[in-house]
């Protein structure tokens, strides 16, 4: 019983972390057909911005609760800047290229941003653990969990809901759905696709920096953290079906639970579990679980 609850809790926490990273990735893919490797850099930039600003804020002796707002502000601010820079400054010149070429384009951006981060923040680790420890912990069947991690589950769920609501219940969201469904027709109907792209990319980037900023308190922020998460996020969205928010959620849950089951029951398999799940899912559902259907007229 204790083991089952531990497995579920660990799986949920890990899944909510994965979803935070994967959400922006899948949104950008869904709308723009760009599998954005630079999403890893956005995550890293969010983590650096969050950790350094929280450190700066707390060093000023301000009330510790404000640190959460600082994290949020850092994520939004850095996400908007980097998103606009990358989309307006680079990507818009490459629209219409092959999807695989776009992966390489964003890979190049990832390489560049890796060094930009190093130049901006150096290679020393940044810590901002105060927000992580401040919330205390909860005991659950004899196991302690950090309340911050539990909060992460709710934050992820809220983001998921917000994205769903935004896409399905707002005018802008419906226009975006039209773009997702058929870009050419949407443009023909007078939807400003270019602006939609910019807005989507910035939202996706902010989701990425937000994931980084929320992760920062629990880790040591240092070079290379972005590259480590990107393949993980890829696996999640591919399992779920590229471009689908629900798919990202399902993918995150499957990977999260599979991983925690493996850690508790068979730690040997931890390294394979994600790729194993991905291979199994793709073997039976070649387009992932919730693929966006593409019909072809002949």
């Amino acid at each position, binding site marked *: 019983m204790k083991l089952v609850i531990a497995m579920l809790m660990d799986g949920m926490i890990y899944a909510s972390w994965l979803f935070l990273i994967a959400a922006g990735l899948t949104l950008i893919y869904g709308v723009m057909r760009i599998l954005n490797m630079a999403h890893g850099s956005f995550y890293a930039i969010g983590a650096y911005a969050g950790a350094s600003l929280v450190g700066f804020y707390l060093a000023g002796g301000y009330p510790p609760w404000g640190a959460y707002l600082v994290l949020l502000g850092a994520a939004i601010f850095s996400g908007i800047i980097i998103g606009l820079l990358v989309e307006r400054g680079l990507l818009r010149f490459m629209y219409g290229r092959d999807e695989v070429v776009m992966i390489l384009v964003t890979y190049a951006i990832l390489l560049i941003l890796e060094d930009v981060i190093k130049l901006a*923040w150096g290679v020393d680790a940044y810590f901002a*653990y105060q927000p992580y420890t401040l919330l205390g912990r909860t005991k659950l069947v004899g196991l302690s969990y950090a309340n911050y991690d539990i909060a992460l589950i709710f934050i992820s769920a809220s983001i998921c809901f917000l994205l769903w609501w935004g896409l399905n219940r707002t005018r802008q969201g419906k226009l975006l759905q039209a773009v997702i469904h058929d870009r050419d027709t949407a443009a023909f109907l007078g939807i400003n696709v270019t602006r939609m792209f910019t807005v989507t990319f910035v939202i996706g980037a902010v989701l990425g920096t937000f994931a980084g900023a929320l992760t920062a308190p629990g880790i040591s922020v240092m070079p290379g953290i972005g590259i480590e998460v990107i393949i993980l996020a890829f696996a999640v969205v591919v399992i779920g079906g590229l471009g689908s928010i629900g798919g990202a959620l399902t993918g995150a849950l499957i990977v999260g639970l599979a991983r925690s089951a493996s850690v508790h029951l068979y730690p040997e398999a931890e390294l394979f579990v994600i790729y194993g799940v991905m291979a199994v899912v793709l073997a039976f559902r070649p387009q992932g679980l919730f693929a966006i259907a593409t019909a072809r007229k002949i």
Partner: protein
Amino acid sequence: MFRSFAKKSTLTGLILVSAAAQPILAADDYKLGLVTFLSGGAAGPFGIPAQNAAKLVLETLNAGQLPAPYNTTGINGRTIVPVFMDEAGGATKQASEYRNLVERQGVDAVVGYISSGDCLAVPAVAEQLKTLTVLFDCGTPRVFEENDFKYVFRTGPTATMDNVAAAHYINETVEGLKSVSGINQNYSFGHESWADFNGSLNQLKAGVDVTTEQFPKIYAGQYGAEISALMVNSANVIHSSFWGGDMEAFLLQGSARGLFEDQTALLTTGESAMYRLSDQIPEGTILGGRGPFGVFAPDTALNRWFREAYTSEFGTPPTYPAYKMVQGILGLKLATEKAALNVNGQPSTEDVVSAFEYLEYEGPGGKVSMNRGKGHQATMEMVYGRYALQDGKPAVTDVRHYAAACVTPPEGMTSVSWIEKGMPDAQCD
């Protein structure tokens, strides 16, 4: 914060400029290749501290201002010109870059290599090119146990020594030791560390249970599930050879969940986080520094100079990679100068090699004896202690030293079989 930010930017700017502008070489300059991680996850904890230490020591050496007996200029009077290289890209890439260093850039010797994979791949090339190469940090004992190299030396202790000493330490200091658990990274260093620790503990004390062995992916960063598994499978001691960001993340996440309240963590590389996470490490945590480095280093003139100079230059005290880098450079200097005395003039590489073999010298971490691997592998004493706050300052208590002969297999025996056979001929106090 912003000042340090600005300082870092200028510093990196300087690095860029200095790297771009090729220094003009005088004919008798000593060109030294220095290979450490400058990008990726190992740059922050290892590569950059080692590079910083190298810069500091080379500058001081060139000015002839190091404490005695190192107070002669450069290496054998020749000014040392560093050539820095990133260790990223994998072993094949590094074998290739090593050739470039020697054949294209014409370095006289190379000091470097943090990754064990690189330490296994590079020596073969070094032998071909007959170039003196000092491995300063990598941990795998396989380098000299599986091969005989002529031109390659390792001035740092192996990871086996760490873990055998760690087993001794908990066997001696943990009362009622019944069980251990392990969390190590899923790669060679993690596997070997756990195997050495667990194997030697079995030899020292029968009947210690292993409650769980966790091997998360390197750079995973998220250890929630592993921490739960460690809680469910509670043990007296949790062994971990995590390093850098992984170790720090594990500490943060474990502390926040109270993992260390009824279990003691044994962190073989924990010393490097001591100052950065001083209020997050639970008191009583067992810390190692992969040798007598950092806080465990002896109080000598050389160490005092190094600590002070490094701290004032870079803002933090030096960690073990920095110590090991200095140790490597000083070994090279001493061997070269000893060879010069022997031959009365500029020594050939072969002269330096024979001078280097079985060399004994003092590094900032104390005595280094090149007495394994036919004189090519260093041994040093091992030190462990427990973390404690003294007057609110991070410190270590209950420090124990283990002689090199106690934690190192005798010449000609591999670490694995030595531990399997019950560590024969170990000379412990």
